[in-house]
């Protein structure tokens, strides 16, 4: 168990992982569930348990669309999307950089890009 | 055999109802004005376990075309266990009647609670219709009692 890591994630996300009751509603509502190795309830659970390495190594964290459906519907106010965002940031920081800079955005935007992706990118950046 | 003005067969049906659930359920269907055929006549017994196979045979002897027994749902018996005995006794009795070639549709057990006025009326309607379709009881009647 990696408690430092857990504390950092909790601090960054502001989410209350210990409140999770494992009802699975976040995963039940997740639109990208099928693509994920770990699912939203597992993200929360792994953070709570300090299960660092597996979670950070998993591509699942980038498959989260940050649509916030899980945050909207969690009966306990755990905010799984924020947790996963914090994990993503942690991964990115470990690699030494934030991949997206605000200035890059206009160039990166192309016509076929779904609006959702753009909003998501901005949300990620806004951290 | 009773017929109505259109000449259709009107069966005689005896319903044994336990005082605590099914008789109260029958009262409730009355309170709610839920219709069921008038050829069904209810006999009140304290508990479905009071119904002796002799009573059922007696009804058939005297000209009943169908007999239905109603009691509290298993587990809800006013006397705790009465309807569990009813269930075994009637299962075996009905099986024996069937074995003797008596139409198995002529007998029925239904659990009706005091709150199930609707179910009581529906059950009686469907049972009466079933017996009407089956025709008069000829296999277990007493010729001396034939109307």
């Amino acid at each position, binding site marked *: 168990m990696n408690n430092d890591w857990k504390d950092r994630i909790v601090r960054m996300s502001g989410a209350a992982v210990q409140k999770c009751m494992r009802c699975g509603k976040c995963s039940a509502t997740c639109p990208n569930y099928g693509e994920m190795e770990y699912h939203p309830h597992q993200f929360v659970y792994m953070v709570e348990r300090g299960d660092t390495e597996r979670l950070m190594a998993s591509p699942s964290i980038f498959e989260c669309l940050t649509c916030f459906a899980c945050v909207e519907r969690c009966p306990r106010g755990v905010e799984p999307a924020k947790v996963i965002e914090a994990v993503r940031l942690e991964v990115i920081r470990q690699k030494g950089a934030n991949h997206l800079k605000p200035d890059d955005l206009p160039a990166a935007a192309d016509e076929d890009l779904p609006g959702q992706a753009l909003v998501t990118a901005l949300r990620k950046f806004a951290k | 055999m009773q017929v109505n003005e259109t000449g259709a067969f009107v069966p005689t049906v005896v319903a044994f109802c336990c005082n605590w659930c099914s008789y109260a359920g029958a009262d409730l269907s009355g309170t709610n004005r839920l219709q069921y055929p008038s050829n069904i006549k209810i006999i009140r017994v304290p508990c479905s376990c009071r119904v002796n*196979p*002799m009573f059922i*045979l*007696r009804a*058939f*002897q005297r000209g009943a075309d169908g007999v239905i027994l109603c009691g509290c749902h*298993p*587990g809800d018996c006013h006397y705790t*266990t009465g309807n*569990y*005995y009813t*269930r*075994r*006794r*009637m*299962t*075996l*009795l*009905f*099986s*024996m*009647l*069937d*074995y*003797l*070639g*008596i*139409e*198995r*549709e002529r*007998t*029925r*057990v239904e659990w009706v609670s005091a709150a199930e006025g609707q179910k009581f009326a529906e059950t009686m309607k469907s049972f009466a219709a079933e017996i009407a379709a089956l025709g008069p009881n000829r*296999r*277990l*009647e*007493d*010729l*001396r009692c034939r109307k």
Partner: protein
Amino acid sequence: MQEMMKKRAMELLADGTVTRVIGWRRGEFSYDISPAVFEDAAQIERDFVWDAFCGANVSKYLIRESAKGRVLAFLKPCDAFSMNQLLAEHRVKRENVYLIGIPCAGKADIDRIKARGIDGVTGIEEDGEAFVVHTIYGDERVGRADVLAERCLVCKSKRHPVYDELLGEEGEDLPDDARFAGVEKLEAMTAEERFAFWRGELSKCIRCNACRNVCPACTCENCVFDNPDSGISQKAAADPFEENMYHIIRAFHVAGRCTDCGECSRVCPEHIPLHLLNRKFIKDIDELYGTYRAGEDDETKNPLTSFTEGDAEPAVVRKRGRA
């Protein structure tokens, strides 16, 4: 075996263990054997028989006899089951009876012997897998299976669930495979066919009450059919309904208590297969509530005076077999 039984009976009479003995005595004909009470050694020496015609179940007689003092009874496995059921129902006091279990290899059915054209029967002897029938015309050898009573062909057990001592080897329970074949055959018929079958059989009933009088489960002080206050009393069946009524109620009253000893069918002068009614109840009970054998012990509760919360609903009857 007969000599061993006689010897033991005389010993027990002599040492005062019992005051009377229930066994079998020959009647008018050698195959006409009925249960009898013997009170001294001389009677035993003269009349006591034990052969393949001793089919009668003696257990019921113990109700009356045991009330008079301690009595010895020889019990075939069938009789022992009936006996045990009577003990469970407090009809016989255990301390008033001395029970000797005797082995039984099946009893011969005189009607089946006669049906083979064998007449003038004067006796019978067992000889391995065959019977030697003595007649006034000489001995006839017949295969056991050809003349055994139906109930013995489908014997349920060679074991004595109750006894004080055993003569001979104790046997084992036998598989039930064949016992319900007759019931199954009827179940496979349509309701019309079944109705026709039973009408044909039960209409022969002359209400001689032999079935009731021989039945070790029918031991009521006053039978409902004899009791004018019961509302269903009847002397002779006046109508097909009463024929049905009598047999349905009788079967129902012994349901869960009947040990399937087959005496009802044996004594029926009209050869009505009454055991098919009782076996139907036994089969239903076994299938619906788990295998139960009346007379097995005196603790297991009669399936009609017990229940489980998950019992089948009576509607199960509507879903089974052919309508």
